[in-house]
Every structure is written in structure tokens, then in C-alpha cells.
């Protein structure tokens, strides 16, 4: 039989004042009073409240938040997408519907005649953005998908998606821009 090692932990004795609870009561009251007066401050910045009054004060989404999709545009305002079908192919929820058409400009091969994202099916995985070879579709709009009153509203067509769009820094149709590293 081995010996059992017993380690006796010495508890800190309570002092007289701690036993009377008087000082501890006052300390406790001090803590709540500190919170009370801090949160009474007229300057909102000084308060300790963490509540975000959401509908009144919209809260900032983090930079990488995947919000509503947007279609980027070219320098002349046309849609940047070349209807390569990469995004609709990779989409696990099968929510992107693209119909390609020929473009008048010979330097542009195809463009999407219709580009519809069914937001009710979209799972916001962001794979379409990963798949896009020409930085045409993004989810960095910072706008969340709002609730729909009608199923029709959930179909975001090309114009709706382009409304949020902007110009990309990537060169359109040109050489691959090597990454800085």
C-alpha cells in the first residue's frame, strides 16, 4: 500500500470585520453604486452598457461578414460578369441561375442576360465569391438579407445585384495580377 499524499490547503481565516459582514456589505454596495453612477453618465461613451439598440442603431458588421451579393461593374458601367457559370456550378444550394448571351463588343465573349440569386436558397457560404475568376460577384456589401413578404422578392435579379456593385480594382480581362507575396 502506497502512502496517500494529503496536501492540507490552509484556508485564509476570515477577519473580524469580514465575519461581521459590515465591511463586505459596504464593499458590495460600492460595486453596484459604481455601476449605477457610471451608467447614469450623460455621455454615452462613458457608460458601461453593452446593449445595442438594434433597429434604432444599426450595428456595424465585421469586415468579412457575408451579406447580400453584389455584381461588380466595369469602367463603363456594364456588368463585369462573363457568364462563365463557375459560381452557379459550385453553389451547393443551387441558388444561382445564369442565362448567358453574346455581347456586341467582340472583345467580350459573353455576358449574363439574366443573373438571379434565390436568397431563400442561398446559405451564404461564400463559395461563389471564391469561385469567381474575374472578381464579378462579391458578398462584401455589408447589407444583410432582409426578410421577404413575398417569395418573388427573394429572387434578386441582375439589376438588383448591380445596384450594390462597384468597380473592382482588378484589371478586367487582362493579365493576372500577381499577388504582392
Amino acid at each position, binding site marked *: 500500500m502506497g502512502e496517500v499524499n494529503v496536501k492540507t490547503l490552509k484556508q485564509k481565516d476570515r477577519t473580524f470585520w469580514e465575519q461581521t459582514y459590515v465591511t463586505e*456589505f459596504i464593499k*458590495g*454596495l460600492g*460595486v*453596484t*453604486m459604481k*455601476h*449605477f453612477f457610471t*451608467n*447614469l453618465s450623460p455621455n454615452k461613451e462613458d457608460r*458601461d*452598457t*453593452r*446593449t445595442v*439598440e438594434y433597429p434604432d442603431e444599426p450595428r456595424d458588421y465585421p469586415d468579412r461578414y457575408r451579406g447580400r451579393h453584389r455584381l461588380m461593374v466595369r469602367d463603363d458601367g456594364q456588368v463585369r460578369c462573363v457568364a462563365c457559370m463557375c459560381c452557379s456550378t459550385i453553389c451547393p444550394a443551387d441558388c444561382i441561375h445564369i442565362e448567358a448571351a453574346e455581347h456586341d463588343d467582340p472583345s467580350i465573349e459573353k455576358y449574363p442576360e439574366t443573373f438571379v440569386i434565390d436568397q431563400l436558397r442561398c446559405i451564404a457560404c461564400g463559395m461563389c465569391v471564391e469561385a469567381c475568376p474575374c472578381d464579378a460577384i462579391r458578398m462584401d456589401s455589408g447589407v444583410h438579407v432582409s426578410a421577404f413578404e413575398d417569395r418573388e422578392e427573394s429572387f434578386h435579379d441582375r439589376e438588383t445585384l448591380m445596384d450594390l456593385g462597384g468597380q473592382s480594382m482588378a484589371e478586367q480581362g487582362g493579365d493576372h495580377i500577381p499577388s504582392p507575396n
Partner: protein
Amino acid sequence: MPNWLAIILFLLVVLGAATGVISGAVWSAGFLPAMPGWLIILLKIGIIVFGFVMLVASLMTLVGDRKQSAKIQNRIGPNRATFFGQSLGGLPHFIADGIKMLFKEDIVPNGAHRTFHMVAPALIFIPALLGFSVIPFMDEYCSTGAPMVTPNYPFELCPNGEWLNYFQVIDLNSGMLFAFAIASIEVYGATIAGWAANNKYSLLGGMRSAAQMISYEVSLGLSLAGLLLIWGTLDLNEMVRLQGKLFAGWIPLWGIVIQPVAFFLFFLVGMAETKRPPFDQPEGESEIVAGYFTEYSSMKFAVIQLAEYVATVFLATLTAVFFLGGWQVPFLFADGFHFGGIGAQPDIALPYAVVIAMRIVAMLFKVLVVVWLQFMMRWTYPSFRYDQVMTMGWKIVLPLSLANFFVTAFIVLII
């Protein structure tokens, strides 16, 4: 049963508020001396009960229980209900609560004693309000308009006129006895409410509240015995007048200065007496649902709740009267401020009306501060276990108040 009782009560509150406003207007117009005595008494009751007690008590449900707790816990508190887009610090919530209570179903449980079940809320509520009848909100009013200030007690004389009792419903020379007698009657309401509901939880809550209130009643009186020895009067207004004395010309001899231990004991016992947390064993949320008012709904529930708040205000008022100098403002006498002892001329002369206003405001301010402190404690400390409450009442607070009494008696004897 229709909610006619509740509707009548609501109308009474509205009428009372109207009375308060109108009587305030009448007062400012200076009609008061011309009015018959009974009308003055009615006005006083209207203003004190509805203009102050009910107002503070009902606002405490909002400001104290919701907003203050929110501030302490780093929250915002209710602000979603709005009037014309303004949240007004949550005030609409408070009104919505009242209206909701009015329209809720009034349930009397099967097997309950119907009469007692209905009467019990009133039995809790009426004593809570009655106590205020002896509280002096200001000194008596000198009919000639300007009392003479003398260096010694009673400091203010009314040589050519008479003292008119405008700021106290009854000028009772045994006011303190009356206040405590009324306060202890409240036990019946809670116990009957618990018994009449035919619910074991309610019964337990009723028994607990009876035991707790009676236990602490003893200390409540004994903690004040020292003050009675020193002042030798039971008249509350007289007590407040005596607190106008200045020690060495600078230190006002308020109750808290001459009896600090009694102050803490009284404050503690007062919290236990009003059944507020940390002494909320009669309610005992986690153990016996809501204690003696488990089976109450609708406006009956609201009345019981309100009675608790009124009792809180009452204990705060008593604390202010006994220990915080009541309507006294330090160094303020009928003709202005006298710093460092009462001289022939005041250091800052003030008209009598201003002094009256300052004193009333001082009284209300003190009450509100004590109420605020009670709520701070309510949101700071965890509840006691029931046996701890009893142990504290009988083994700690009672001996302490007795010791305080004996030491005070000894000192009074020597001096």
C-alpha cells in the same frame, strides 16, 4: 366577476391625482386659510396620499425596479413602448402595465375563502397608507406668516398668531406609537391573503411573513427606544424640531448623529419589515412561487405589490423623520440660514414661503434618497435563507438594539 372594483380603484387614483393638482392650485392662490377644516384635511390627504405616496410608490415599480436595476446590471431597461416616438425613460411601460393589470382576468381559486381573498389586498394596502397620516412633511404653519426665531428650543415661536397644522394630516402627540401600531397591522393582511387562497405555497408565505414581521417588529421599536430616551417625546413633528438643535453651532443633531447604531439597525429592520430583498422570504421566488400572493391576479395582485412599495416608502419616511432630520435643512430656520449658531440676524435672510418650500423639498428628497438606498441594497445582496433571517432577527439585531438602548440609557442617566 367584472373588474368593477379595479375600475373604481383606478378612478379613485385619477380623482386623487386631480385633487392633488387642484389643491396645489388652490394653495398657491392663497385660499387655504378661508377653507373649512374638513376640506383642508381632505386636501392634505389628497396631496400626501395621491400626490406623493402613490406617485413615488408606483413610479418605484418603474424607476426603482426596472431602470435602477438596469443601470446596476449594465443594461438599458425598458424603452420600447413609446408615446409619439418618445420613450420618455420608459414611462409608457409603466402606464401600459397599469392598463394591462386592469384588463386581466381576476381569478379566485377553487376552495378559496372568497370574502377574505377579496378583502386581503385592502387589508395590506390600507394600513400601508394610514401610516402616512402622522408624518410631518413640514413644521406647522404660523398664521401670522413669519415666526420669531429664538436661540433656544423650540427655536421658532409664533407670538401673535397660532400654529396651523397644514403639512401633517393628524397632529398626534403619540404619532410614533400610531405609526408602529399601523405598521404592525399589515401582518394580518399578508397572513389572511396567504391563508384565504387555499394554496400551500400561499399559506407558507403567509406564515413566513407573519413570523418575519412580528420578529422584526420587536427590534423596530427597540432600536428607536434610545431616541425616545433622548428626546422624550412621541410626537413626530416635535422630534423633527428637536433635530434642529446644533452641536457647537455647526453639527446638526440629527438622529443619525446621536444614534448611529440605531440608524443602521432601523434601516436593516425596516428592509426586513417591508419584505424587500434580501429579506424577501415571504415571497421566496425560488421556493414558494410568490408566497402569500401566489393566487392573486389582476388588480388585486397590483394592489398587493403596490402596498409593498408603499410600505417601503413609509419606512423610508420614518427613517427620514427619525434619523435624517425630517424636514430640517441644516442651519435653516424660519427667517433664513444661521451658520454657527442662531444669532439675532440670519446670515442669509429668506422669506418664510421660500423656507417652507425648501423644507418640504428637503423632506421629499431625504425620503427619495432612503428609498433609493433601499433599492440599491435590494439589487446588491442575495436573499437570506429563511432560518438566517430568523437568526439575524432574534440573535443579532434584537440583542444589538437592546444593547444600544441600555448604553444610551446609561449615557442619558450620566448626562
